[in-house]
């Protein structure tokens, strides 16, 4: 019963993920990407960071690592897979999840607290919440603007695969509450199964009570 947190060259939120899962009594270990995934992994986290220095595009190089084939196999078996920040970029680059995360509309790295609204509470990552709940989570990214063609965006919405949208503290969508210019204010999406999800905000940085924010705990409870 161990969750694998995959460390790529340049990952830097891997230990945060271990700490956060540990606080929820979830057994987790860091796995170096070249070592492959343990076959009995009960979950996978693609952590944040700057894998391969964001060369070419954020997440593009890590997406080519052979371990991602293992991740796809486990994901197809229904094992929960969560990509956070750089892990979200890796998830989209490896086609585990739809769309792409690219340069913020501001063209700046943004490190701040944001509000996100739960759009689909019928997933392992959001079962702890109700649809419409507003969570406060940290973001820290330069390439978090969600992009997807108009047609595929309509499919994403009709298939209920938008997990979170950026919103204000009352849960309302607005340009001001969309920190990076994401299409549809999308902050997180689901893959083909609702057990595969990526999001740009950091739930593992909003889990330990001593850090002040705990709204992210519910996301990580997918692995409990």
């Amino acid at each position, binding site marked *: 019963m161990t969750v694998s947190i995959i460390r790529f060259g340049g990952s830097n939120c891997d230990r945060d993920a271990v700490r956060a899962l540990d606080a929820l009594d979830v057994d987790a270990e860091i796995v170096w990407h070249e070592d492959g995934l343990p076959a009995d992994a009960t979950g996978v986290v693609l952590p944040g960071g700057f894998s391969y220095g964001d060369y070419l595009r954020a997440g593009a190089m890590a997406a080519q690592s052979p371990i991602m084939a293992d991740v796809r196999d486990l994901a197809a078996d229904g094992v929960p897979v969560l990509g956070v920040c750089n892990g979200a970029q890796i998830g989209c680059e490896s086609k585990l999840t*739809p769309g792409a995360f690219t340069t913020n*509309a501001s063209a700046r790295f943004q490190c701040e607290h944001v509000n996100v609204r739960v759009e689909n509470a019928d997933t392992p990552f959001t079962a702890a919440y109700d649809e419409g709940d507003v969570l406060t989570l940290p973001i820290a990214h330069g390439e978090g603007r969600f992009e997807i063609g108009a047609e595929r965006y309509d499919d994403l919405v009709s298939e209920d695969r938008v997990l979170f949208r950026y919103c204000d503290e009352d849960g309302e969508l607005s340009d001001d509450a969309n920190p990076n210019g994401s299409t549809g204010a999308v902050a997180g999406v689901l893959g083909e199964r609702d057990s595969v999800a990526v999001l740009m905000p950091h739930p593992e940085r909003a889990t330990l009570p001593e850090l002040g924010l705990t709204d992210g705990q519910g996301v990580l409870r997918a692995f409990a």
Partner: protein
Amino acid sequence: MRTFVYLRVFPKESLTTDAHISAMTAYTATVTVRLKHGVLDPEAETTQKALERLGFELGDLRSADRFEIDLEAADSDEAAERAGEMADRLLANPTIHDYDVTVETAE
């Protein structure tokens, strides 16, 4: 940030026999990767503003990544096909990018 990457790729079969080598030609394939029309390019907008601050007058500015790939192939079509496959698999992200490939005989 614009990226220039130079790759030198030799297919394995070019190393098998001398006769085969003589049938291969050295090409340089240039892959240009651009954001699809309508996809916001904040870096280009920032660059444009900086040029305008310097006093330049310009209508619009677009940015692109260019990859120059040296490779050996039987003919230019094969060289273009292989460079296109590299773009499909890695150099471009089809969600946000278009790309084009041009091939020249290497100097």
